[in-house]
């Protein structure tokens, strides 16, 4: 599936139940048009990972995800040899002589996400999630892969991509990424959505939710983001919370139900403690007024 304009891609993403703002649609479009990776940064829960999933859907591509963590190495990101099988083969061949090629053939290779993405015949969206968690050694290796789109396995030779995967990197900025990696990618910062878009997202993701409840929930979360919280809620939290409220059969919010369900919006004890009693009543009132006005 090819997209000629940003509008076309935006439309297709909407069709896949993902509502990007214009900036994100532009970033994804340019990433395809320029065949460059795109680095998405933003607060947790603004939909960085969801964007990759939606892009894969509209492209009819396979989504291959590499979740990064500290200590991630080639054996877990690219490939590994299947040692138990190799050992069995050695045992079976005990009598005769054993040639090295027998032991390091494709049938003994365990393919990890990066190799899968490079060595694929169909279209692929490669999601490299939370790259800031991987250590710098891995970042340097990744830079190589993203420049050449090829991987060398000493025993087998070099495998080059027959078609370049679309690459999305996400980062929560727990550390600064290397400049070389940033230069190779387009950069887009995803902020919290506008209130209108957040309501639209909630109504799309929580089918059947009363319009008023969606408006009040979005407005309340917006109020929360204005406070000094350890972890301000993202869109993901708004959706979770709206689902909970809808499941309770609510038409609107009040202090009592907010109190009962606050745990699905705020994930830190200190944040929940900060939103109690008068603060909570004040925010509920503000949200209800804002929703009624909007």
């Amino acid at each position, binding site marked *: 599936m090819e997209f000629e304009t940003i509008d076309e891609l935006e439309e297709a993403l909407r069709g896949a139940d993902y509502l990007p703002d214009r900036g994100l649609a532009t970033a994804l479009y340019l990433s395809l048009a320029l065949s460059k990776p795109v680095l998405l940064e933003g607060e947790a829960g603004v939909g960085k990972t969801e964007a990759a999933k939606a892009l894969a859907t509209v492209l009819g591509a396979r989504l291959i995800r590499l979740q990064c963590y500290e200590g991630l190495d080639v054996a877990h990101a690219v490939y*590994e040899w299947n040692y138990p099988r190799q050992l069995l083969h050695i045992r079976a061949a005990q009598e005769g002589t054993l040639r090295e090629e027998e032991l390091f053939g494709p049938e003994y290779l365990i393919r990890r996400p990066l190799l899968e993405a490079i060595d694929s015949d169909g279209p692929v969206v490669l999601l490299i999630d939370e790259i800031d968690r991987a250590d710098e050694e891995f970042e340097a290796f990744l830079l190589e892969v993203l420049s050449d789109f090829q991987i060398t396995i000493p025993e087998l030779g070099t495998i080059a991509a027959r078609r370049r995967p679309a690459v999305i990197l996400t980062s*929560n*900025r727990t550390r600064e990424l290397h*400049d070389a990696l940033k230069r190779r990618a387009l*950069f887009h910062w995803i902020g919290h959505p506008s209130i209108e878009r957040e309501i639209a997202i909630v109504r799309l993701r929580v089918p059947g939710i009363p319009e008023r409840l969606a408006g009040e929930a979005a407005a309340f979360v917006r109020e929360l983001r204005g406070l000094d919280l350890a972890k301000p809620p993202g869109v993901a939290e708004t959706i979770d919370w709206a689902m909970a409220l809808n499941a309770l059969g609510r038409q609107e919010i009040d202090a009592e139900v907010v109190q009962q369900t606050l745990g699905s919006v705020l994930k830190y004890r200190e944040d929940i403690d900060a939103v109690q009693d008068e603060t909570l009543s004040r925010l509920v009132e503000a949200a209800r007024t804002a929703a009624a006005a909007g």
Partner: protein
Amino acid sequence: MVAGDAILGHVVTFGRVLHEAGLEVGPGRVADALRALDAVDLARQEDVYFSLRQTLVSRHDELDLFDRAFSAWFLRAPVLPPVRSRSSAEVETRVGQAVDRLRSRETEEEADPGDPLELGASGHELLRDKDFAELTGDELRRLRELIARIGRSRPQRHSRRRTPDARGDRLDVRRMIRRSLRAGGDPLDRPLRARKDVPRKLVVLCDVSGSMDSYARALLLFLHAVVGTGRGVEAFAFGTRLSRLTPDLATRDPDAALARCTEAVVDWGSGTRIGASLREFNEVYGRRALSRGAIVLIVSDGWEREDPELVGREMAKLARAAYAVVWVNPLKGNPQYQPLAGGMRAALPYVDRFLPGHNLRSLEELAAVLAGIERRHAA
């Protein structure tokens, strides 16, 4: 193509505007920007804006600057005051004075530069215990190398990454199989892998307000050496507000770093707002988990100009994220010292180690504590 040339001219000049404003914009990025503009509808301002932003900017903290430049250049908005130079005439004078003050202290007593290793044993011992506030410029210069040596010892932690190691605790199966081929398939050799040690993240927050003035110089030398140990170190200075010093301290020469630090910390020599500075740190850097799992080293005398309660609240947040919090207070060097200052009292419950750091000997102690630190209170 006339239209194309016009765009080329615009983008290249805009790149220069950004560069002047302090953004790193190489030819590769300008080429990407042109390719991007070629792919979008130029009639839509929003699309032009995002195409340029996504190709020319790669850091969140540069977005604001980009926005101003974009408005000024493409939208012909009234030109805003230059963003990069925050030095108003007053600040400039203040910075100039601060630099002069540092320089004059260094030349105050002209003597031979003196090699720290040639320092007589007795002279050395004397200097070790001499309060930093009482050092002459020459004495400080003699101690420079010793201070740097202390700063270079970094606390380590186990990485999750394993590397070949003869004393390792895990079998390196890949290498074992390779080697076994030579022996006809018998794993005679058992290569091992072990977790390697990597430096633990270290965040240093240094108070450079008036009351700390006499210690700041020596402590900045220490910080310079710490930052020189490589990645995973972040240094900040605070007074009335917080300023990130890591890039300034990253230059090789301590003198240049010192001069640049002075310039970066515009509130050098004014009052202290510890609570507000800690809050700024928690909000901007703590949220990015900069302090998670790190040893946080705070250097301050604890004199809070405003609200001690705020100090306590922000210290609690900081301590939750950090691996350990070490507070260095030069006043503690005085045996009669009692932590009576409001800010210090509020902070102490969240401090794992409380040390003096007023002379060379106490810096050595600090290095030993940092190297052997374990989570939560021991002392």
